[in-house]
Structures are given as structure tokens and as C-alpha cells.
């Protein structure tokens, strides 16, 4: 029993170490204007090069640790966003990039817009701007990595708030 606890503890530390050193990121556009998306792409390219933090853009939600979400959530994209979020393995983290993802931005009140991202899924880090500069996105990622240092930061498995 005691040995099992020690083993679990060591295993948790190894997992946290691995996660902090190489978070795999999934990008989902839930109705954005592209502005944030091209800036996210720019953060991956040589001048900003977020890969130096071990961040890798991943295509499949099942392999991703972090969901970067841009844009206000449209009625069509809401179900897909939920599905993508649910497909990600625990523990999972969400970064909302851009004014629209935070508050609806310029699209507040549009008939096909549900609202901001945290009305649909829980969000850990907010990066404001229209669009945020790549430096701001890197800052958001770095803050999230800081948060991940402690294993307790992992959110307990919970029902998704809709």
C-alpha cells in the first residue's frame, strides 16, 4: 500500500515533468476571423518559435494537452468545440486567444454567435487583443506552463459546463 503511494507519487512527477517540457497543442477555430489564427501560426515560426518551450502543434485532439481556442463560438461550431474538448485526454487545459474568445468582441449580439469560449468549456488562460501579438500568446503559454508545474493544478475531472 505504502509502496503503491510512492509509486503513484513518482509517476505523477514524471508525468508533470513530461507535460511541462513538451505540451502538445491543439488549435481550434470556433468562428474566428483568422486574425488570431495567423498570429498563432506566426508564434510557431522562426521569429517567435514557441517550439523552444517544447510546444508542438498537434492535429488530433486525442494527443493534445492544451486546446488553443480562437473566436466567438458560433452555433455551428459549439457542438464541435465540445466534442473536440471531450476527446482530449485528462488533464486538459484551454487557452482562449483574442477578444472574441474572451468576450465575443466585435461579434457580440450577432445572431449566430453563442458567446465567448468559457460559456462552453472551462478556460485556464485568457490572452486579450484583436488579435494578440505573438509575444502575448507566448506569454500566455509560458504562464500556463508555470501553472502546470504543480500536479495539483490539473483540474479534477468534471462535467462540462454548457
Amino acid at each position, binding site marked *: 500500500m505504502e509502496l503503491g503511494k510512492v509509486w503513484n507519487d513518482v509517476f505523477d512527477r514524471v508525468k508533470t515533468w513530461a507535460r511541462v517540457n513538451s505540451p502538445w497543442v491543439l488549435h481550434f477555430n470556433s*468562428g474566428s476571423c483568422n*486574425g488570431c489564427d*495567423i498570429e498563432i501560426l506566426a508564434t510557431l515560426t522562426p521569429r517567435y518559435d514557441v517550439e523552444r518551450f517544447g510546444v508542438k502543434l498537434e492535429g488530433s485532439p486525442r494527443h493534445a494537452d492544451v486546446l488553443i481556442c480562437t473566436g*466567438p463560438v458560433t452555433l455551428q461550431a459549439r457542438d464541435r468545440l465540445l466534442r473536440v474538448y471531450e476527446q482530449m485526454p485528462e488533464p486538459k487545459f484551454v487557452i482562449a486567444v483574442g477578444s472574441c474568445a474572451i468576450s465575443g468582441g466585435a461579434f457580440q449580439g450577432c445572431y449566430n454567435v453563442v458567446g465567448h469560449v468559457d460559456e462552453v468549456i472551462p478556460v485556464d488562460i485568457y490572452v486579450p487583443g484583436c488579435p494578440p501579438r505573438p509575444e502575448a500568446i507566448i506569454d500566455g503559454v509560458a504562464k500556463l506552463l508555470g501553472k502546470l508545474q504543480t500536479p495539483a493544478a490539473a483540474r479534477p475531472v468534471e462535467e462540462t459546463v454548457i
Partner: protein
Amino acid sequence: MSTDGSLSGKRFIVPIGPQHPALKEPGHFSFTVDGEVVTDASVRLGYAHRGIEKATESRNWTQSLYLLERICGICSHVHALAYCLGVEKLAGVEVPPRAQAIRVLVAELERIHSHFLWLGVAAHEAGFDTLFMYTWRDRETVMDILETLTGNRVNYSANVLGGVKFDVMPEIGDTIRRGLEFLEGRTHHYLEVVTTDQVFLQRTRGVGVMSLEQAETLGVVGPTARASGVIRDIRVEAPYAAYADYPVQPVLAEAGDLEARFIVRIKELFESYRIIRQILDTLPVGELQTRMPRRVKAGETVSRVEAPRGELFYFIKSNGTDNPERVKVRTPTLCNMASVLVTAVGHQLADMPMILAGIDPCFSCNDRTVVVADAGGAAYNWEQIRHYGIAFYQGK
């Protein structure tokens, strides 16, 4: 992967999207494959539909400008430009020549940034990530220029109704010239890469061929059309802003395949460099803005501009109040989307991302129509369509 009813195992429908690694935007594609070969393709759009056209009706003329600029983050300037040109035409306002020239300057800088962006993304789809990284490194040069000029990297917000917001100082002109010199050298290199790299050519030469007749029938626009030999460029056909003073030579190619689209877009960059230099050399002196009335007199107008992806069309109707009565936008990606479905047939599934990237798709521009299926022949008005849409999604 799902079968289409026949359990022979020969034909499958491969669904791709809306979240997929190939593109950064949501769009759903269904490719029917026979083995590796695509036999049929269909697309479902509308994931990024936000209802911007309707929202302009509840905002005044100036507020609508900022909203319309956010239709698309890549070509935000041309959206604002098309809207401004239309509203100014309705209001009967004459914009000073210096402002018009600055508008063209920013539009061409935006074309450079957009084409570099596309070159990188298309190379990424081909699995040529080295080219992707190099082009995006070089693209930062033009992003720096745009930031120096306008204060923002994306969504520059250069236009106001009746003019532009900022002036081009001589020292900024020197910065722009230095940046262009660097970019021009790099562009020569990229032109050489896409026309001589054997591995890359195997992904582009003879892939996604669209003949001149097909291009005309499908009504494609912009560089996609020009790569098939169709001379279709609004800057040449109906010069707007200051394009009458700075004439553009359309870049054409005959082949109509992906290689031709690469060549056309890269050669257009040289044309943009030339126009920007010409504008910097001969920038007219004068005011930057004229006074714009708060209410625009009743009437309707059409405004067309050449976005980096092709013809951008605005219909604007005013009823004499603070707010527009109707703004209709038709974006180039919608015109080009049908060509993807036609040219996809007969190619391998692995070529699909390249063929799709070949038209330089922009889904956030694109997603602006509500298609109501099975309406039973009934016509809806705006209010009914809104209720129908909400009920449809809540019922799901």
C-alpha cells in the same frame, strides 16, 4: 470512415473536418474514394458563420466599418476598403488622392503578406515544412512594415469613411524600400524553388488542372483564374481607389495546375513591389480625410475590389439613416470553392490538402450564407430565418 451503404469495401466516404490538421479553419469535406482515388467530393461550410451582414444593420456606418474589417483577419484591409469605397460613392464624397494612394499602398502590402502566408501554408500541405518556415520568417518583414505604418500587425484599420487614418512619412518610405529589397531577393529564390525542386514539382505539376473553359464555367476569380489563363483582375478591369494612376499588369499562366498557381502568386509579388515603390516615389500631396456626413443619403451601390484571393464584392443599400439597410458581401473563396470539388475528382486522397490550399481558401470570409434546406418552397424573411436558425440548433 464510413461506408456509403455498399459493404463491398471498395468505396468509402472519408470525412475530413471541421477540426483538421490541414487547415487552421473549420470546414467539412466528404471525399468518396475508390481505393486511393477520389471519385466524388462535397463540402459543408458555415462553421465560422457569425451573422455579420445582419449585424451591420444594427450598427451605424462607422461602427459597421470595424465590424466588416473583422470578416477576415488576413485580408481585413480590402474588406474595409470595399465598404468605404461603396459608402463614399453613396454619400457622394470625394476622397483626397493622397488617401487613395495610401489605401492602395496598404492593399498591396497586404497582398504581399497574404501571398507569403499562402506560400508557406501551401508548402506545409505538401509536406515541405522548410519552405513554410522560411516564408514565414520572411513574412515578418512585411508584418513589421505594416506595424510601423499602421500600428497593428493584423486588422490595421487603415481606412476611415472619407479617407485614411495615418500619413506615410518619408522615413517610413525608406523603411518600406529596405524591406521590399530584402523581400524581392527572397521572392526570386522562392520562384526558383517552386519551379525547379523536383520533389515539390511532383506534388504540384499536373495536379488539380483546371482548363480555361472550366475556369470560365466555374466562375473562379483571382489568382486561381489567372493561373488558368483567364484575365480577371478588378484592378485592371475596373480600377478603384488609385489604381487608375498606378496601373497593374495582370500576371497570367496557361497550365492551370498547382504549379501555375504558385508561379502566378509569386510573380504577383513582384508586381506589388513595383506598385509600392511607384506609390512611394509619386505620392500625391494633400489632405488625408474629407468630412463624411453622419447620415448617408438613400440609394444602393455595388463596390468591387481585388482581394489577394480574387474579386471581393460588396452591395450596400442605404435608407438615409445612421445605419446601413443592407450590406451584402460576396467573397472570392466562395467563387473558387466549386473548383476544388471539380478538380479533386480523379486525384489521390493525399493530394486533397494541396488542391484545397491551391485556391487559398479563407473560411471566415466564406461563411456568410444561410442555406435553409427543405423549406417547402416557403420564403422566409430575416426574422423568421433567425428564429428558424435558433430553433434548429436548440433542437439538436
